[in-house]
C-alpha cells in the first residue's frame, strides 16, 4: 500500500526552475542531480519527502532518486544546521593544524564532526581536499570558501553566519 507523506511541496517558482533544467537534457534522468541540489537548497536536507518531491517533479521512480542521492556525499540525508561548515583535514591542512581547528569548533561552538550544534546554527562535515593546499587550512561555509585559517580567523568568519 502506498503511503503518502504529508504534503511538503515545491512552490511554483521551484517547479518552473526544475522544468527549465529538464528542458536542457534529452532525458529526464539527466536533470536529477541539479534537481536534487535545488531540493537540498529548498528543504535544507534530502528527507524522503524532499526526494519524493523531486521524483514527482521529474516523473522518475522514487527509489531511483534515492539511489542516486545516496551515492553522492554532497547530499545531506540528515537534518543539518543553518550553516554547514566543511573543513578539510587532508595532508596539508592536517600539517598546518586542521585537527586543532576541529577541537576548537567543538569547544567554542559545540559542533562535532557529522553533528550539529545545539542551537542549530552550525553543522560540521570533515571533508577531503578542497584544492587549497597552498593556503591551508581551508574550509567551506555553505558555498563560501575560506583559507589560511586559524582559531581567531574562524571566529571572525563565523560571526557572519547566524
Amino acid at each position, binding site marked *: 500500500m502506498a503511503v503518502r507523506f504529508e504534503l511538503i511541496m515545491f512552490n511554483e517558482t521551484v517547479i518552473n526552475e526544475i522544468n527549465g533544467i529538464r528542458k536542457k537534457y534529452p532525458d529526464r534522468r539527466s536533470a536529477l542531480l541539479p534537481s536534487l541540489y535545488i531540493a537540498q537548497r529548498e528543504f535544507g536536507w534530502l528527507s524522503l519527502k524532499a526526494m519524493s518531491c523531486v521524483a514527482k517533479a521529474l516523473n522518475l521512480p522514487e527509489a531511483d532518486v*534515492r539511489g542516486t542521492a545516496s551515492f553522492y556525499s554532497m547530499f545531506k540525508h540528515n537534518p543539518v544546521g543553518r550553516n554547514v561548515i566543511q573543513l578539510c583535514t587532508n595532508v596539508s591542512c592536517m600539517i598546518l593544524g586542521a585537527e586543532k581547528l576541529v577541537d576548537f569548533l567543538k569547544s567554542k561552538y559545540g559542533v562535532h564532526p557529522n553533528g550539529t550544534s545545539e542551537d542549530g546554527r552550525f553543522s560540521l562535515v570533515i571533508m577531503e581536499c578542497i584544492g587549497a593546499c597552498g593556503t591551508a587550512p581551508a574550509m567551506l561555509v555553505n558555498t563560501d570558501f575560506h583559507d589560511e585559517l586559524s582559531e581567531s580567523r574562524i571566529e571572525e568568519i563565523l560571526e557572519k553566519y547566524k
Partner: protein
Amino acid sequence: MITLTINNKEISLEQPMTVLEASRQAGIKIPTLCYFEALKPYGGCRLCVVEVERMPRLQTACTLMVADGMVIQTESDTISEVRRGILEFLLINHPLDCPYCDKAGECELQDLVNKYGPAVGRHKEEKRKVPESHKDQILARNMERCVACTRCVRMCSDVQGASAISMMGRGNDTRMEPFSADSFNCEYCGNCLTVCPVGAILSRLYLHSFRPWQVDREVDTVCSYCGVGCSLTVQVRDDSIKRVIPKEGKGLNKGLLCSRGRFGYEYIGSDDRLTTPLVRKNGKLEPATWTEALEIVADKLQGIRKESGGVSIAGIASPRCSNEDNYLFQKFMRMTCGTNNIDSISRTGYGAAQKYFEDLLGQGITSNLIDGLKNSEAIVVLGGDPTSINPILGLSIREAARRGAQIAVIGNAKGLERFKTLQITAPVFEEAAVLESLLAQVFASKGERGEHAFLDRGIADMAAGTSTVSDVKGLDDLKKILLESPSTSIVFGTDLVQRSDGHRSLFAVSGLTYLLEARLYLLSEKANEQGVIDAGCVPDMLPGGRPLHIEDFKKKFEMLWKDSLPDFKGKTLMEIIEGARTGDIKALYIMGENPVFNLPDAKYVKEALDSLDFLVVQDIFLSETAELADVVLPALGWAERTGTVTNLERRIQVQKKAVETSAGMEDWRIISEISGKMGYKMEYKDSEDIMDELAQVSPLYRDLTYKEIDRGKSIWPYHGEPLRGAEISEIPAGEEVQSGNGADYYLAVDRPLFHSGTLSRRSPALTKIMPEPVLRISAASAEKLGLTDGDRVNVTTSAGSSETVVVVDDSITDNRVYMGNNFKDRGACRLLNFRLDSVTKAPGIEGCGVTIEKR
C-alpha cells in the same frame, strides 16, 4: 554465418549473440552470478571471464559479442584462479551462515564456492554487519548476504517496471533498499525473489519452514487467479503447499509472476474451508452426509422440474471452475434439469463484451497472443487497468512502451502512469459518447474498410448521428497516433460494459478494431472466463459457441447427448435473479459463484435468492450466498483437482492436482452424482474423460487431448478450424439512456492488484499487503473534501454506506472515486444500483453518485 571455437569445439551461429549465449547453446557451462536470462547483460560480477585468443585480458562472456573466427577457452588455470579470487572478495562480507539461511541448497554463490573455492578466506577484517530487516510483511531483506549483483533492481525496473527498489549508498555500504528503507510499498510481484542468487531477499511466507531439498513433490500447473493463466510450480510438503515459484523462462509468463499468483495460494489451506455438506434444517445450516445432501438436491430439483417444468430451474456457472466442470454443469442443467436458464458472472463484463465482439467481428477476434502486445506501436487501454487486472499482460504493455510504443489510456490506469504517452478522461456516463466521437473522427479520415458492408454502414450511420465531443482533451492527439500507427492494439477492460449503454462503447471499440485492423485484447478477471463461455454456460449457446436456435446444432447435440434439449429461450444472469424475485425461477443451482457479493445491489439480489424455493450452492467457502442456501456442497479448489482452463488468449492449459484433501469433491463429480440420482447418467473416470467428450462434441476443441495441451498445442484456433464469421448482419440497437445525476463524486468499482474477487481475502499474505478496502481519490477531490491519506471515511450512496480508508492517487484526474469489491461487508458492488443494458444484458452501474464523509 558466424563460426567460432569454444573449448576446441567448433560452433556455427546464424544470429549474432554474446559469447555466453553461444556457449550455453552449445552446452558449455560458464559460471555467472549477475547474469539472468530475462535481464540485460550487466558485466558486474566478472565470474564469466573467458580467454579469447589475441585479446590481451580476460573478457566477460556475458557482454562480449561473438565474432567470426573467435577462439575461446572457458576454463583454464588462470580463469579458475580469477574466479576463486572474485569469490574470495565476495566472501569478505558474505556471512557463512548457510546452515541458517533459507537459500542454502539453491544458492548460486554456495554452488560457485563449492566448485571454485576458496576453502579458506584470508581476510582478517570484520564482516559487514547489517541486521535482517523484517519491516516488510512479505519480504525479508538480509543485506549482509547481498552480493550487489543488482539482479533484483534490474528486474524491478527493466522488466517489472515498478522501480520500487534501488542500490543505495556506495562502496562497502552498498545495499538494495526500497525507497522508504523499510516496507517495500511495491507491486509485490516477488520477481526479486526469483532473481536473487543468494539469500538476500527472502519470502516471509515460508521463512525457515523448509529446505529446498525437503520438498515432497513439485507440480507444474497454472495460476488460479486471472485470465492470463501463468505457468507456475507448486512445491508441496506433507500435503500442504510450501511455496509457489515460476520456472525460469517457462509458460507465457516466461518466469514472471504477480503478487496474487505468487503469494495468494494460501486460501487453499484456509481453516475457513467447507469440510462437509450442509443442509438447512429448521432454518439453520447443519452438517450432513454426502448421501443425504445429494439425495435432497436430486429430489428437490426433480420435484420442481415435474411440478413447474425446467423453465423454473436455473444455474449459475463459474469462471473459477474448470472447462470440464462447466461443461458438465451446463449439460446437467440442459439435459437433467431441462433448462436453458444458465449463465455466469462473466455476463457482467467479459462474456457480454466477448459475445458482442464475436457477433460483429467473428469468433476469435479477441483471441490474440499476449506476447504480441509488445510489438504494437500504439496501444489504447480503456475500461480498466491491465497492470492490476491482468498484471502479466500489463507487463507486455510496459515492455511496448519501453520499445517506444505510444500508450494511450482512456480512463484510469495507475500502473501505466510512468508509461503512458497520453491520457483521456471521459466524463462519467459519457464514455460511450467519447468513444463514438473518436470512431467518427477516425472514420472521417480513413473511410470505409470495405470488408463487412454492414459494419461500414453501421459506422457511417453512427458517425452521421454523432456530435463531436469537443471538450475532451487529447482526442485529436489520439486520433493522430492511431492513424499513423502501423500496428495498433486495443486493450479493453470490462468497466465500460457495466453501463446501461455499454453496447455503444462496444460498438465504438468494434468499429475502431475493424477500421484500424487492430488486435483486440479483452481483460479477464478470472481464470476461466473464456472457458465458461466456450463450455456452453450461456443461455443461447451450446459448447463451442454453437447457437442453440440453429436447428442443425441442436440436433447434433441431442444425438450426442442422447435426449432432447429444452426449447425455450434461456434467461441471462440478471434475468435469472429477477426471475427468482418474481417467482418464475423456483430453484437455483450455483456453482462456485457468490452473486450476493459480486452483483450490484446486494439487497435486491439477496431478496431474490430468499424468495427461491430451493437454492443449492457449491463452493469451497461458506460465502455470503452459501449462507442463504438450502444445501451447501463443499467442492475442491485449485491445486486439489485437475482440470483445464482457457485464458483470455483462448489458450487451454491444465491446472493440475498438487495436494490431497479429504474434505470436498470435484465440482464435476458432485454434478454427475446428482444427475445420476435424477435419472440422467453421467459416468466419467476423471476430468480427462470429460475433456475427451468435450473435444468430441465441441467443434472448437476438435480432438484436443490432455497430452496435446501439455505439449503446448492448445493455442487458438486449436486445430486450425475455420473461424465462424460475423454472426449477425445488423448492428443491434439499444435503448437510449442515462446521464450523470449531477453528483459531486462517482463511485467506480476498483480492481486492486492485491485482491481478486473474494478468494484473496482468505490468503493471509495478500491481506497483509492490503488489509482493508481503500478509496482511491484524486488529489483535487481530497483537497476539496479536506482529506489526506489514511483518513477513515464513510462512503454513502442511495443503496448504503461503507467505511473505508482514503488513498490519494495522483493518477486519478476526475471526480471518480475507486473502491474494490473484495472485503466482507465492505464491498463496492453492494453500494451500487444497476439497469440492464438492453443489448448485452450486462448490468449497467447506476446510482453511483456518492457522498464522502470523514469519520
